[in-house]
């Protein structure tokens, strides 16, 4: 009779653990299959690199006038030509990339910092807290944001001189008028997550409200939060460009793409390159961020998995 072989405990099992899949690595795997998102990601990366380079080097100083004849069309010496004051447009586009990123990323961060805690509290505590926060969200939605932003910039910078005209005041104006999207999204997430069993289980083991919010509700809502914050970037960029175009954004000679478009507006019929360069850069940036946002949304949403 054959004796069953005894198990040898010293033998290493030929078993490899499957690679750990985290939220982010899983999302990355899926975003790689999304071509448009990938294109967007490349453009965004280029934008970041250009912005970083512009801090230390641009072909000409962005503010330097009369580096050549005014309205000069693109040439090898000046890749995108010169504007009405004879400034090198290529250099100014590079500088504008930095402004764009500062405004976009800064606004996304501030909007999240306002929206996430408010949304978490509204969704988690419900009742009176939710009523108050939701009331403000709904009221804020009803206010025309550009109008309020215009007034804010005017009051803060021009009338009271509290904050000099610049990136900071634009970020403040944007965040104060557009914090509701993130807040509302997080509120919804918190409302549904607070009923999940693992939250109940954590509560039963004596977890404090703060740790329930921080460890259990917030991390589980992270996917949608990242997506929503990503969409805040192009919104803020457009917002800044629009304000600057109207002359209420960044003061000259700051190389804001919106202000550059406004500068070239009057010479559009004989020197279109002055308007085209910043508008194309702006459009590419907006599309890229939106593609990345869409890609992220698909990547984080389990219902969209293919």
């Amino acid at each position, binding site marked *: 009779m054959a004796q069953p072989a005894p198990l040898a405990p010293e033998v290493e099992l030929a078993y490899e*653990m499957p690679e*750990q899949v*985290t*939220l982010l690595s899983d999302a990355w795997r899926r975003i790689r299959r999304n071509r448009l998102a990938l294109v967007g990601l490349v453009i965004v990366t280029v934008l970041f690199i250009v912005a970083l380079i512009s801090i230390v080097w641009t072909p000409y100083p962005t503010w330097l006038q009369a580096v050549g004849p005014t309205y000069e069309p693109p040439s090898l010496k000046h890749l995108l030509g010169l504007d009405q004051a004879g400034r090198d447009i290529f250099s100014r586009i590079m500088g504008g990339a930095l402004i764009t990123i500062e405004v976009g990323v800064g606004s996304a961060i501030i909007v999240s910092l306002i929206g996430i805690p408010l949304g978490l509290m509204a969704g988690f505590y419900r009742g009176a807290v939710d009523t108050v926060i939701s009331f403000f969200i709904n009221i804020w939605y009803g206010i025309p944001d550009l109008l309020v932003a215009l007034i804010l910039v005017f009051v803060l910078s021009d009338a009271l001189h509290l904050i000099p005209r610049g990136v900071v005041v634009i970020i403040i104006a944007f965040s104060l008028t557009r914090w509701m999207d993130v807040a509302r999204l997080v509120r919804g997430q918190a409302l549904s997550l607070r009923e*999940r*069993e*693992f*939250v*109940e*289980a*954590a*509560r*039963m*083991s*004596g*977890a*404090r409200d703060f*740790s329930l919010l921080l*460890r*259990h509700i917030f*991390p*589980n809502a*992270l996917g949608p939060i990242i997506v929503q914050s990503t969409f805040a970037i192009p919104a803020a960029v457009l917002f800044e460009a629009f304000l600057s175009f109207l002359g209420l954004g960044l003061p000259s000679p700051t190389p804001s793409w919106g202000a550059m478009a406004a500068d070239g507006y009057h010479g559009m019929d004989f020197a279109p390159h002055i308007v085209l360069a910043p508008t194309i850069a702006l459009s590419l940036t907006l599309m890229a961020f939106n593609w990345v946002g869409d890609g992220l949304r698909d990547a984080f949403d389990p219902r969209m998995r293919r």
Partner: protein
Amino acid sequence: MVNAVDGVSFDIDRGEIVGIVGESGSGKTMTALSLLRLIPEPGRITNGRILYGDKDIAQMTDEEIREFRGNEIAMIFQDPMTSLNPVLKVGFQIEEAMAAHQRFTRQQAKERVVPLVSRVRIPAAKDRVRDFPHQFSGGMRQRAMIAMGVSNEPSLLIADEPTTALDVTVQASIIELIRDLSREMRASVILITHNMALIASLCQRVIVMYAGRIVEEGPTRAIFKNPQHPYTWSLLRSIPRMDERSHDKLISIRGLPPDLGQLPPGCKFHPRCRFRIDRCLTEEPPLAEVDPGQLARCWVLMKNIKDPESIAQK
């Protein structure tokens, strides 16, 4: 107002394992949740006392009760699939359960995780604590939940249908684990279930609930051998048993559990009872001692019925 749990009163000694059985909606989970003051809204405790030692849980402040939860009384849930946070590593979640209380420092909590995980018999504990819940099987998740439950060495563990979501072979090992842990830590256990076999294998004492009331209570042996309430008797006779002579037919309890908003007058079980007398229709029986240590809420009692089988089969 609906009284989901009404006049339920029982004691649990240190180290004792007590089972609460009953149908869905009989109030067993609500009874357990009120011990932790975690009744879902809009429910609340309107009356009564919950004494833990000499402290009344019903009178505690919010901070006192929070410190109490998980520290003195811990709970194990029915569905281990959804009771663990999907985005946090298992070991970290166990650590967090300890960090919520003062009993251990953060460093101690960290060091206790691996021994705890191996204590609930998860193999390769050292590696497994770094896994996420989705990498665990159902049985392992329930073990991890148990590890979280016992991490603060509570003196009472409430297990709310801890094996319902698991397959039979895993059920047995989970039950064994709960029994061993209770013995090692001298912790009392309240086991909530509708599974009679589970009660028989684990509990020293049984509480049978019906319509938010205790209808019978006593030592497991006595209840299984000589159930006195018709509900208990029918419940036991509704499951096939290997250790008894085969009967003709299993007995079913006709009808549905009553709507708690519209309870019948008299004995709450009488509409479904095959042994009722006139008195049952108007007067609710008290929970009275029928044998030493055994209580039943019935006017009739099964010992007074000759040949209940034939009556029930009709």
